C-alpha cells in the first residue's frame, strides 16, 4: 500500500473545507479558549494533490486514493481539477490492477466530467489494458462518456483472458456512424460505431439481426455489439475455427477468394451441369458461372449463359433452348442467383438454395466464400450468425455472455453442444458463475456514484465476476 494505511471510517472529504486553513489537518490543535479541539479531519484532497505534484506523482496519489473509502475516492476524484485528473490518469497500468485498483479506476471514471474525453479514455485504457481512441482511419470519432461507460460495463463482465489479458485484442476504438455497429480487424482492433442520436442505453434488437425466437432478440444492441466484436478477437485463441468446422459448429468451409467456386457449387448440386454429356460444353458452362462469381454479377447470369457460343441461336433453336433451360434449371444456378454478400443470403429463412445438405454463399466481398450445413440454422442465435464462421462464433459469444443469469443460459435447450463447448473451451472459468451482478467485495465493483447502474434494457447492470482472472 505504499506506506499508506487504510483509514476505516475515514473522513467524509465532501465536508472538508477547501485546501485547508492555517491549522488544517493539525491534529490536537487548541481552540482560542484553550479547550482541546476535536481532531480535525485530514485534508485528503490536499494530500492527494500534493502527492500529484511530488516525486511519486500520479502513482503515489493513486496509491493513496486506494487506501480510502469509496465515498472519499469519489469525492476527491470529483474535486480534482481537469488537469489533476488527467495527470492522475497517467499512472502506469501496473499500479492500477487488482480489485481495489479496478474499483478506484471506475470511481475515477464516474467522477470525471464528460467533457474530459481523453481522461475518460485513459481510465478505460488502464482498466482493460487497451488503447482506447478513435479509429485510425478517417471515419474515426472521439469517444464519449456514455459509450465508454457502456463498454466498461460490458467488458468487465467478460473474462480477463478475453479482454485485458488477451494478446489478440489491442485496442477499443470508435468510428462515426449513424447506427450502432462494429467491426474487428485481425490486427487486434475492436471498433464500435454509433452516433449521437443512437440511444445506446435503450436500443434493443428488434429484427435487424434476429428472428422473433432468437436468443439475441430484444437484447441491448450496443452491448451485444461490443461482446460480438470482442468475440472476434477471442475466436482464434480458443479454437473457434476448428469448432465451426465441425457439424455441431455448423460444418463451415471457407475459401479466401472465389477461384474454383463454380466447380464446387456445380458438384455440390449434382444436377444436370454436373452430368453434362459434352465435356467442352460443361467446361464452358462452369467457366461462365465462374465469371459471374468472379465479377460478382448474379444479375448477369442469364445474359452470360445465353451468350455461350454453343447456345447461339437458342431463341429460335428448340434444342439449344432446351439446353439453356437445363442449365438454368440446375440448382447450382439457382443458388448463385441469391448467394452474394450484397444479397444478404444469411438473412433468408432458408439461407438460400440448398445444394446437398449445404448452403454456399459469398460472405464478404473481398471476396470470401463459405459453405455450411443448412440444418445448423435450426439452432441459430441470430440470422447474422450464418454470414461466416467468424460471425457464427461472435454471435455465439455474444449469446453465451448475455446477462443476466448463468453463462450460456440462452444456449441451453437450443444448442447444448455449443454451450458445453463454450463452457469447456471458451470460458476460462469453465461455465462457473453467472452473468448477474456480483456483490462488490472489499469496495471493488459496484461502487460509488452508481458505477454500474447505467439504465439498461434487456441487459442487466454488470459487475465483475470475481477478479475475472482466468482459471
Amino acid at each position: 500500500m505504499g506506506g499508506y494505511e487504510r483509514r476505516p471510517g475515514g473522513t467524509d472529504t465532501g465536508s472538508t473545507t477547501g485546501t485547508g486553513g492555517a491549522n488544517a489537518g493539525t491534529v490536537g490543535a487548541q481552540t482560542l479558549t484553550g479547550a482541546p479541539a476535536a481532531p480535525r479531519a485530514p485534508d485528503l484532497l490536499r494530500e492527494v494533490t500534493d502527492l500529484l505534484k511530488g516525486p511519486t506523482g500520479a502513482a503515489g496519489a493513486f496509491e493513496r486514493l486506494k487506501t480510502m473509502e469509496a465515498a472519499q475516492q469519489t469525492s476527491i476524484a470529483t474535486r480534482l481539477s481537469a488537469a489533476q485528473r488527467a495527470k492522475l490518469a497517467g499512472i502506469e497500468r501496473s499500479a492500477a490492477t487488482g480489485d481495489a485498483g479496478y474499483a478506484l479506476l471506475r470511481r475515477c471514471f464516474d467522477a470525471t466530467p464528460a467533457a474530459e474525453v481523453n481522461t475518460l479514455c485513459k481510465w478505460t485504457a488502464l482498466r482493460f489494458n487497451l488503447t482506447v481512441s478513435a479509429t485510425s482511419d478517417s471515419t474515426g470519432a472521439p469517444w464519449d462518456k456514455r459509450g465508454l461507460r457502456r463498454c466498461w460495463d460490458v467488458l468487465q463482465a467478460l473474462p480477463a483472458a478475453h479482454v485485458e489479458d488477451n494478446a489478440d485484442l489491442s485496442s477499443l476504438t470508435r468510428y462515426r456512424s449513424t447506427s450502432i455497429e462494429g467491426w474487428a480487424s485481425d490486427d487486434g482492433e475492436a471498433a464500435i460505431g454509433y452516433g449521437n442520436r443512437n440511444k445506446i442505453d435503450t436500443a434493443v434488437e428488434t429484427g435487424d439481426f434476429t428472428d422473433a425466437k432468437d436468443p439475441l432478440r430484444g437484447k441491448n444492441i450496443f452491448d451485444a455489439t461490443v461482446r460480438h466484436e470482442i468475440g472476434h478477437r477471442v475466436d482464434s485463441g480458443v479454437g473457434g475455427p476448428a469448432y465451426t468446422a465441425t457439424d455441431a459448429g455448423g460444418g463451415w468451409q471457407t475459401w479466401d477468394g472465389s477461384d474454383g467456386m463454380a466447380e464446387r457449387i456445380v458438384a455440390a448440386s449434382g444436377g444436370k451441369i454436373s452430368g453434362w454429356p459434352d465435356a467442352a460444353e460443361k467446361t464452358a458452362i462452369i467457366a461462365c458461372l465462374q465469371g459471374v462469381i468472379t465479377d460478382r454479377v448474379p444479375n448477369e447470369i442469364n445474359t452470360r449463359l445465353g451468350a455461350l457460343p454453343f447456345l447461339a441461336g437458342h431463341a429460335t433453336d428448340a434444342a439449344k433452348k432446351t439446353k439453356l433451360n437445363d442449365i438454368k434449371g440446375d440448382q447450382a444456378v439457382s443458388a448463385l442467383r441469391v448467394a452474394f454478400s450484397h444479397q444478404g443470403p444469411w438473412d433468408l429463412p432458408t439461407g438460400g438454395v440448398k445444394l446437398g445438405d449445404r448452403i454456399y454463399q459469398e460472405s464478404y466481398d473481398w471476396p470470401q466464400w463459405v459453405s455450411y450445413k443448412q440444418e445448423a440454422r435450426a439452432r441459430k442465435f441470430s440470422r447474422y450468425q450464418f454470414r461466416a464462421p467468424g460471425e457464427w462464433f461472435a454471435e455465439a459469444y455474444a449469446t453465451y455472455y448475455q446477462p443476466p443469469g448463468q453463462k450460456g443460459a440462452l444456449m441451453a435447450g437450443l444448442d447444448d453442444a455449443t454451450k458445453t463447448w463454450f463452457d469447456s473451451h471458451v470460458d476460462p472459468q469453465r461455465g462457473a458463475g453467472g452473468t448477474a451482478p456480483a456483490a462488490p467485495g472489499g469496495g471493488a465493483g459496484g461502487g460509488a456514484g452508481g458505477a454500474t447502474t447505467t439504465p439498461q434494457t434487456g441487459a442487466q447492470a454488470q459487475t465483475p465476476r470475481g477478479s475475472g482472472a482466468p482459471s
Partner: protein
Amino acid sequence: MIARGPRARGTHARAALALLAAVLLAAACGKSHTARGAEGGSGITKGPTQMAATQPDTAIVQDALAKELKVAPGDVKVRPLNVSVPGILVFTASVKAGRPVTRTGIVEGGVIYTETEAMSRVARAWNYGVARTVPPETVAQVFGALHLATAESSPFIDEDTVDTYRSVSGPKRAAAVAMPKEATADGHPAVVYCLTSASRGTPFSVITAMVKPGFQVELRAQPVLED
C-alpha cells in the same frame, strides 16, 4: 488470420451516412466540398482543383479510398458497373484493410459523388424523368447499386432471380419481391424496385425512387421484415 467482418447494426440514417461518405471521399480526393442539407444526401460538389480530371476514373476511386483508409492504392479493388451512363463511371470499390471496407458511388468530371447526389447526376446524364429514356430495370440497376455509399446493395432486375428469391424467402418478402416498374409518386416520375444489401440497416426493401424537377432524386424505402 482471417479478418472478421463488420457487423453493421441498427437503423441506417441514409442522408447522414451519405454526407459522411461524401465528405470523406471529397477530402481524400483533395477536392473542396460543400455539405448540403441532410435531406440532400451526398454533399460533394466539384471543387476548384481539377488535377483528378487527368486520372482515369478508377484511379480516382483508388486514390480516394486509399487515402481514407491509409492503404496503398493497389489494395483498392474497383469494379465498374456494366451500365452505360454518359460521362459517368458507376463503381463499387472494396479493400480488405485488416477489415473489409466497401464504397459505392460515381465519378463524374473527376469528382466522386455518392447516394442520391450520384443518382441525380445519373438521371441528368440520362435526361431521365418524364422522358423515360432508359428501362426501369436499368434505373434500378444503377440506383440500387448506389443505394448505400458504404455497403453493396443489389436490386432485383431479373425474373429468374425474383422467382428464386421468392422460393427461399419468408412469406412477406415472397409477396413483395417483384421486377422494377415505372410509377408516379407525388406527381413525379418514379421507379419502384426491390433491393437487398450487405448492410443490416437496410434489409430487403421496396424502394420508390422519384425523379423531381432538376433531376433531383428522392428515395422512399419500405423495409419488409418477416416478423
